[in-house]
Structures are given as C-alpha cells and as structure tokens.
C-alpha cells in the first residue's frame, strides 16, 4: 500500500506544483516590465551618481579647468596596474635677457629667485584598458584630486581612444559647465555629466 501511495498517489498530488508554477509565471506575465528600456529610458541619476566609472580629475573650486593635482606621483606609485602617466610641469624657459640678468646677479653674489615649476601636471594620461577600478589612486591622493566618474555611457571604438587625457577632459567639463549652451559636445561627454 505504501509503495502504491509513493509511486501513484504522491506524483498525482505533486502535479499541483506544476499548476502553481504556471500561476506564478502567469502572474508575472500580467505585471509591468521592470527592465530599463535603454535608448528610450535611462537609469535614474541617483543610481548613476554612485556608479564608479573611470577615474577623472577634480578641478579647483575657483578654477575648474585646473586640477587640484600637485604632481606628487602618489597615484602613479600606488597604482597596481600602472595605468596612470603623470608628467610634471617644467619651469618656464627663461628668456635670454632673464638668463643674462640671473648670471650677472649670481656673479655679483646675490641670491637668485628662479621661477619654480608649477605644481600642476603637464600631462595626466590614464589608460582605461589597464585600470582595474580599485580606487587605490583615489585614496592615496593627498590633494583629493581624483574621483570615479559617472561616465556610464562612454564608448570607445579603439584601444587608442581608451587612453584618456584627463587634463583635456577636465577642461572640456569646465567649459561645459560654464557655457552649457554653446559648449561643443566633447567626445566623452554623456547625459550623466551634464547633470554633474
């Protein structure tokens, strides 16, 4: 009798689970869709603001086109993937007159005030193909000049495009913020940035 129950009655009772399954999929069939329908809809900016895209520079509050960066190379040393290239600015080349003046001053035994190299980097190249988005550069930046961008819509069609000049990007962003109507749409710009 037990075998009969196990092999005949029980499977018939268990068939109810099949109907329950149909009921669930049927219920969800009638419910509204939950996917974001990309070209027509976009992800809400709240979610986007926490998205960690590629690394970007932060401009000075008063001069948004110049980064806070002081070319200390902490990011370059600590980057595990070696994806950042920072070139320090050189001191402006003295003109012939200045050079002559300094020479004369030195010969006279005076202390010469040569202009120092600006702290801002001359070049800040970021290779996205190598980056693992670990954020080590951001934490170790003493000037707090780096952050993750929210640039979710960025596409590149070649490897060369994945190498971003972050200084140029910052300038483009600054120009866009100051004159949004006239600013030419920069290559890496996206809806996300316009809000920023």
């Amino acid at each position, binding site marked *: 009798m037990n075998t009969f129950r196990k092999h005949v009655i029980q*499977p018939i009772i*268990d068939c109810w689970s099949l109907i329950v*399954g149909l009921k669930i999929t049927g219920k*969800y069939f009638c419910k509204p869709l939950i996917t974001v329908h990309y070209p027509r809809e976009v992800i809400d900016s709240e979610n986007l603001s926490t*998205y960690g895209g590629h690394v970007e520079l932060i401009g000075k509050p008063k001069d948004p086109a110049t980064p806070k960066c002081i070319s200390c190379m902490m990011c370059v040393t600590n*980057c*595990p993937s070696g994806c950042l290239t920072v070139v320090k600015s050189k001191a402006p080349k003295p003109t012939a007159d200045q050079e002559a003046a300094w020479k004369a001053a030195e010969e006279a035994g005076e202390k010469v005030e040569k202009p120092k190299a600006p702290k801002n980097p001359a070049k800040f190249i970021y290779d996205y193909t190598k980056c693992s*988005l670990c*954020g080590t550069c951001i934490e*170790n930046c003493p000037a707090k000049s780096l952050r993750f961008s929210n640039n979710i819509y960025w596409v590149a069609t070649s490897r060369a495009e994945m190498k971003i000049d972050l200084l140029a990007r910052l300038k483009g962003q600054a120009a866009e913020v100051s004159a949004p109507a006239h600013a030419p749409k920069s290559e890496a710009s996206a809806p996300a940035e316009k809000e920023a």
Partner: protein
Amino acid sequence: MSAYQNSEQMKGDFYTQKFEAGKRDGTLILNMGPQHPSTHGVLRIVVELDGEYVVRAEPVLGYLHRMHEKMGETQTWGGFIPNMGRVDYGHPMAWNWAYCGAVEKLMGIEVPERAELLRVIMTELNRLTSHLLWWGAYILDLGAFTPIMYAFDDREMLLDILQRPTASRLTYSNFRVGGLQMDVDDKCIEMIKAFIPHFRKRLPMYKDLVTDNLILRRRIEDIGIIDQDMCRRYGCTGPVLRGAGVAYDVRRAEPYSVYDRFDFEIPTQTSACSAGRYLVRVAEMEQSMRIIEQAIEMLPSAQGGYIVDKAPKPAMKPPVGEAYFCVEGGRGKVGVYVVSDGSKTPYRVKLRAPGFSNLSAFAEAATGTLIADAVAILGSLDLIIPEIDR
C-alpha cells in the same frame, strides 16, 4: 572510422588521447566543454559515455589560468587586493577578506569594530548575490529559462546597494588592510533595510516556482551523492559538505572577525545529493539575512571608523613571517596563505579555492549517472571556473 579520426593531427589532444587509452568497447568519448552551455565558462570535462550513461569523467582545467598566485609575488601588498576581486566573481568579498585578514594577522593590525561590522554586512550581501547567481544559473542548466530572470531582478537590487560603498558591481575590491575603502552612507543602510523584507517576500515565490516543482525535484533528488566520507577524501567544504550533513562552517567553527556575536543557524541536509546542496544554499540565504539584520542593529553603537587609524599604505612592509586566514565563502572555505620576507611584495601567496576541491569530487559522483544528471551534479557544486583555475 573516418579520415578525421584516423589522421594524426586530429586525434585529439593529450587529455583525449590519454582518456582514449582506457576506453571500453562500444563507448563514446565526448568532450563536454570548454565551450558548452552548462560548464559555466571554460571548464572542460572529458566523459566516456555508454549510451547516455557516464562511464568515466575527468575535468580538465587550466583554460582560465591567470597566474594570480604568481602575480601576488610581483605586486605590492596593497596592489594585490584588486586581484582578489577577480579570483571569484561570484563572491569576491570573501576573497578580499581572506587576503586582507591574512595580511592583518601578519602585521598585527586590529580592525575597528565598525569596519568589521561593515565587512560582515557587505560579505553577507555578496553571499546573497552569489547564491542568487548560482540559483538562476543552476535552474537554467536544468532547462528552465525564467527563474534566472527573477533571480537577477533581486540580484540587481543588491548590486545597486553594493555599488554605493564599493563603486563596483561585480569584481569588488573595496577591502583594505585594516578596514575598508569607503564608509557606508545612511542611504545604503536604508536600502539594505528595505531590501531584506522585500527579499523575504520573494523567497516563497522561489520556493513555489522552483523548489517545490515536481520536475525539478525529480531531476535533482538522489543524484550525485557526495557523502561525508567523500567530502573528507576530496576536501569539499561549504554547501557541499553541509549538504552531506556536516555542520561545518568557518564562521562558526573558527569564528573570525565578529561572527561569534551573531545568532545564526548552519543549515544542513543529510541527503548528500544535489537536492541537499540546493536546499542548503536556499536556507543559507535566510541565515545571511539574519546576520545582516543583526549587524545593522549593532552598527550605530560600534566603535571606530571604517578603517583603522594610520592604515598602512599600499607599499607596506609587513614583518618577516607567514600567516593563514580563512573565511567562509559562498562556495566553501576560502583560505589565503601569505609569506613575507619583509619586502614591499609578498614572498608567496597561496590561494585555497573551495571550488577546486569541490570539482574534484565530480568525477566520482558523476560516474554511472546519465549525462543530464552530470549537468545537474556539476551545477549543484556551484562552480566558478576562474576561482578553480585562479
């Protein structure tokens, strides 16, 4: 038979030829993978089939080997952390924790209480995403297309939550030696608090749609027996071991961090079959939520910040010595062993991947089953191939 089987070049590679040597008459040697829908990436299994019955099976590894251990010897101590996010995309937080824990042990760093609680919350949330990913993919292996979409619906919410404190959605590498990369904001805690009741409501739906389904039950019950004895022989841990009736969980057996403060159960099943492992994982999701709830309650009164004061820089130099730290990952015991010679880079990093031991039990468990069962057993082991190959 035909020209292609007789030609020397096309006889198959080393593994096939080696396998061919012991072939019985009238059987078929079949390469399942490396490109096969149910091997989840690039696992290759050479099987000898008698009709549809598996006579022998042998996993062939190495198609996704990325030398993580060797990379550890060239990266700085801090620079190796992103690698931990890539070892196992299913549950990267556990790997992060195991590595950071080992280095902290080596350097004698005391992690602040708040950081520990945040680590617990994030790792448990990540365990939920890991189990949801497995759940959906496993049912997909068994032929149902819809449940994975429902699972990803919930998983997506978890990813949105985890995106806030980690800035990434899959390969998290937000653990740092001595704490975490960023603090968790209030909005994130709110989202977690909202997610848990939502997910509790979803679990019965999963149960009705899949767990109770007659077809699924018949597919996974009493196949792929991996009992206690086998687990011991192969070193299986995690849900595979708990599915065999051993209540072994690193969180309870050798409590690390603050896990000794939480009240949670270790779900076990005695059936030792695929269904047992399935049910253990489903029950674990509930336990993870319990831990998260308790951790969130403890959070406001926790001491310290999200990272220890004067946290070591990425180019730290731990004292000469060695340390082993293990945590409970989504797939089992994740262990990291580090040796320092006092320099900026580790002398040796050894990763103990639970999936590797779990997979090795597959050949024995699958022998004598149907090929469809072999797929069901493979799925029930919850394999993440990058973790196995490392």
